[in-house]
């Protein structure tokens, strides 16, 4: 019954075409009210090699882009210490810094690079953290994101998400009636973007497997929607589902063994769960209304989904064992595309207020108190996806006539946008923690 076609990627060449320059960049538009002041001193290069990346600069960018930190500009630094003995706390106090990071890069015997970094509390004049890392020469960017993650966690108590990636879809109008869609994979900050699928027909709803090794998405490349699973390491992919009608909204179960999805093969859109090992398909919803956009609770025991069974799209939760159905959203006349944070407490969604006209925004609902906070004022927001540390939601919106990605922290204090240099950008999906 379930068709399983092993396919190679249409254009393997597209897979290999790493674009040299980043398409997206992160611009913080609103940070926390009194951000922590930190100086990331340029790391000394004692390796004797020309390094491909400025590690300290990348660490500083990560911390600055989080919105929680205000990094010190290099030109204002009174010195560039790279060893503990050279750190004069008085200087950094005069510069009103809370923290200082120093580091150095050296060669080691096995041809790799050793990076040592150290974080200091300026007021207390003490070292908070130091760590040696060994990385291949091409791994400096990864090392920088790793260091930023460690510092971020040490100072905020929140796990950093700087080593994560995002996928997104770009759409370009080539000529009348001719479009080009690309599925792209990039670091969270837009760097190292690569095209992993290109098609003249729509691509949408990319979803990460929980181990970060695979993506499921919907592609119209056969002129009808089908669900594909693509392995990121090899580019190999399979067509998982192509029934007549809708095949959409794939979502991986937390254990990676099942895919929730939407099919309309029985007449109208219903939620199904596909067991990826046995290929057994189980129908979950039975209603003449639209049921779509399934997502798993972090414990894998229930699904949340969008349904218009009450007359307008609202978000529901279905307990898979008891089949108990519960409506979650009551504020607003349009709530869709629900996602839960990893602790299961907060629900993010696309929301339209009662009498809100045409404004579609990103909102977050505390499922303990049912308090709803509207996080954006963008008007055409969609596709919210939560960073694995549960602190930031990335989403798609419109700026002028173009689709762009933006992000906002769940507490609304930090906002940033990710402008692209061409085309419409949409359908962001934030990876889980990788490696």
């Amino acid at each position: 019954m379930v068709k399983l076609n092993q396919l190679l990627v249409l254009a393997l060449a597209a897979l290999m075409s790493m674009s040299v320059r980043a398409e997206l960049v992160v611009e913080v538009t609103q940070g926390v009210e009194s951000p922590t002041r930190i100086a990331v001193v340029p790391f000394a290069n004692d390796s004797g090699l020309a390094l491909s990346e400025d590690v300290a600069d990348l660490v500083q960018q990560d911390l600055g882009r989080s919105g929680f930190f205000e990094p010190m500009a290099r030109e204002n630094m009174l010195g560039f210490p790279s060893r503990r003995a050279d750190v004069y706390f008085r200087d950094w106090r005069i510069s009103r810094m809370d923290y200082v990071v120093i580091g150095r890069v050296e060669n080691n015997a096995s041809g790799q690079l050793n990076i040592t970094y150290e974080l200091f509390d300026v007021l207390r004049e003490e070292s908070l953290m130091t760590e040696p890392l060994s990385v291949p020469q091409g791994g400096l960017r990864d090392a920088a994101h790793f260091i930023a993650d460690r510092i971020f966690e040490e100072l905020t108590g929140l796990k950093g998400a700087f080593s994560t990636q995002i996928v997104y879809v770009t759409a370009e109008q080539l000529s009348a009636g001719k479009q080009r869609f690309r599925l792209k994979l990039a670091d969270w900050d837009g760097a190292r973007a690569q095209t992993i699928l290109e098609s003249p027909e729509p691509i949408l709803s990319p979803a990460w497997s929980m181990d970060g090794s695979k993506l499921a998405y919907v592609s119209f490349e056969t002129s009808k929607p089908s669900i594909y699973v693509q392995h990121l390491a090899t580019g190999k992919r399979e067509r998982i589902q192509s029934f007549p009608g809708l095949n959409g909204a794939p979502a991986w179960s937390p254990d990676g063994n099942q895919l929730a999805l939407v099919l309309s093969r029985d007449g109208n859109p219903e939620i199904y769960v596909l067991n990826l090992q046995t290929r057994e398909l189980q129908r979950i919803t039975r209603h003449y209304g639209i049921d779509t956009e399934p997502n798993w609770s972090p414990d894998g025991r229930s699904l949340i989904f969008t349904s218009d069974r009450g007359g307008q799209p609202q978000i529901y939760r279905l307990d898979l064992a008891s089949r108990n159905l519960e409506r979650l959203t009551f504020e607003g006349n349009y709530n869709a595309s629900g996602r839960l944070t990893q602790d299961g407490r907060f629900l993010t969604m696309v929301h339209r207020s009662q009498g809100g006209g045409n404004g579609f925004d990103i909102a977050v609902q505390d499922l303990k108190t049912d308090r709803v906070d509207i996080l954006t004022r963008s008007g055409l927001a969609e596709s919210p996806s939560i960073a694995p540390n549960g602190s930031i939601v990335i989403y798609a919106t419109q700026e002028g006539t173009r689709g762009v990605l933006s992000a906002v922290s769940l507490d609304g204090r930090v906002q940033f946008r990710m402008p692209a240099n061409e085309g419409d950008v949409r359908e962001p999906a934030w990876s889980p923690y990788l490696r």
Partner: protein
Amino acid sequence: MRVANFTKAVAITSAMILAGCSTTSTTTDGGAAGSANGGQDGAGASSYGANSGGVSAGQVVTREDLNQLQTVFYFDFDKAVVRQQGFADLEAHARYLAQNPTASVRLEGHADERGTREYNMALGERRAKSVERLLMVNGATANQVETVSYGEEKPAMIGHDAAAWGKNRRVELKYLSK
């Protein structure tokens, strides 16, 4: 059998007219109502059919007639009810399909950009299915009609205003073979 079918057809069609009347006056009706044939709100589907496009009820629909028929049908926001302006031409398409069993059409459902992509995918399909149902109660058979939804992925008009939205909430009827 025939009688039963006919009764069913009438019942469904009148239900749609009623539904159509109750919704045409509501919500955002962004400038897209204007079909090629115009037509007055509130006029019955059959009388409208007799006045339009030179194809009247009961007649044989020729291949040439098809060129004069509307092939794009518009919808209200978050609705999948075929507006009555489209009924007469859809009936003519259905008659052509009934008279030409080898002919077939593809119905492509679309939504405007507001709301989420997957919900709009479902909405586009619901619209295509509404048109499919109208074709089938008027004589087309299941194997002559296929539906696909593109959701908001293929707008007919680029823009972020009521005019563009109105043009994008649509079903396009395309002949795969005549």
